[in-house]
């Protein structure tokens, strides 16, 4: 993986958060720390349909070296991984909880994330629940809201750049291999 060392500015495009909310829930440093420190990511609401956004994100994260655990009440397996009905049922340590469920369900997901000792909760684009976010922050978790984990990882790891996108990362330093 290896997140680059360059300075960058917060990308304010494509978010419905106010600048104050962006400072709380889209802080570049927090996003990089979260992606850097996580090894295991539980994806709540991961779909088994290959053209759904969540499936793209899971495929990408797996290829980038993360352990991905699907969470979906339908069970079965997705991308070769056992699907758990909820966070509480996962028999191993989870670092990051990535949420693809409607805002109304986020509060319960956050409760479970706190209960299983996750270090961060991340809600995907346009999934907003400020009360739940504050609850997670109060419990010491990193919180990212209204961002895509694949886009952010791609932004810091070069992939998004190859697609011609504006990463807003500026650095003259040679990264370590």
């Amino acid at each position, binding site marked *: 993986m290896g997140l680059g060392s360059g300075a*960058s500015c917060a990308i304010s495009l*494509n978010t419905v958060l106010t600048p104050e909310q962006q400072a709380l829930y889209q802080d570049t440093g927090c996003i990089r720390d979260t992606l850097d420190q996580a090894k295991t990511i539980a994806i709540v609401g991961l779909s088994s349909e290959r053209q759904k956004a969540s499936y793209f994100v899971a495929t990408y994260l797996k*290829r980038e070296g993360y352990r991905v655990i699907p969470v979906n009440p339908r069970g079965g397996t997705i991308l070769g991984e056992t699907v758990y009905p909820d966070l509480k049922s996962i028999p191993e340590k989870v670092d990051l909880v990535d949420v693809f469920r409607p805002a109304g369900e986020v509060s319960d997901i956050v409760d479970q994330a706190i209960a299983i000792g996750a270090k961060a909760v991340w809600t995907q684009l346009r999934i907003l629940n400020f009360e739940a976010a504050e609850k997670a922050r109060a419990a010491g978790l990193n919180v990212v809201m209204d961002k895509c984990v694949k886009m952010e990882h791609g932004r810091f790891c070069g992939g998004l750049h190859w697609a011609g996108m504006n990463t807003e990362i500026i650095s003259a330093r040679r990264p370590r291999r």
Partner: protein
Amino acid sequence: MSSDKNRKFGFETRMLHAGQIPDPHVGARAVPIYQTTSYVFQDAEQAAELFDLKLYGNIYTRISNPTTAVFEERVASLENGTGAVALASGMAAQFAVFMTLLEPGDEIVASAHLYGGTVTQLTHTLKKLSIGVRYVDPCNLKAWEEAITPKTRCLFGETIGNPGGSILDLQALSALADSRKIPLIVDNTFATPYLCRPIDWGATIVTHSATKFLGGHGTSIGGAVVDSGKFNFARFPTIADPSPSYHGLRFFDTFGHYGFLMKLRVETLRDTGACISPTNSFLLIQGLETLSLRMERHVSNAMGVAKFLAEHPKVARVNYAGLPDSPFHDLAKKYLPKGPGAVFSFDLKPIGGDAREAGRRFIESLELFSHLANVGDARSLVIHPASTTHQQLSDEELAAGSVGPGLVRLSVGLETLEDLIWDLDQALAAL
């Protein structure tokens, strides 16, 4: 990571650095030229995931290339866009925008003050695809409004119109486009992002002929499409609906604000093939690195030349929005405060009643201005439409296209201003 790393870098810094971090393997400081057609897959599964767009990465240079990616991200950064796709030329870039956005039966409302090649593309080539175009006086907001029909899918204009030098009222047009929930597409070739950034005024998509001032040295043909990332394509069928060429993938749903550019790259560019050469991308990047310095000199030289011509007794009229008596002066001050570019036209007075002959003789008397069909070179360029590009038209037909028989178009370069004025002065004296 502390928040002191959160910094919005200045335009000039981004001209030099945006899109390139030295690579970890070699550490090359200049942008390497990846002159390769294709890229070795890691394994069969990775290959499949790349083709399925699940991973970011390079497959084939017709679709993406690491040198070109530096050019793309740099242009996107300078235009304050969310990303960019580079293409073989400016014409290819705007064609790719229309091919991505439009379907048969759709209509474009376009400014009538456009580059001639664009007019033929819109009027004749897009007609073959059953896409219609309605031209309007770009200065008449009501005309834009009235031309919009239920079939209209976008508005299109040039920041600085070619060759008349009209200035698009970007703020008013983007408000109109917003109210109709259609994108405003602006060609920013003549202004460059140093003089004007249409996205900052609400434009959705920006196109460029990078051949001109972005490259700036007349060496390479190239184009770019930049997306603001701000338009909601959720109800725009071509971007939102399931794609039959990607197993029903919905680009806006899956890629969000990157959806339009992703679709343009992996469908339109993939299928039409108008890719830029990596070496051209490299040369255009070299141009971008000095964009602000060159544009400052381009506009100050253009202003000096325009003032000289405006006072010359053999010149009937100078069409430069930088001059206070231009009808576009106020718009230029608002949208192009550093100067309204370096391409403009002027009309010669007729010699013995023949303005066409005056234009021909004037061009032939110039020493420093190169007589050719391009603009945006570091060198000064000149063309006389009535004896070249428009020579088959009668004086009446020329007038209908607001190209007078004595009209001369200049692209003012970076030479010593006094030398440019000397050259124009001696050529005018020969009339």
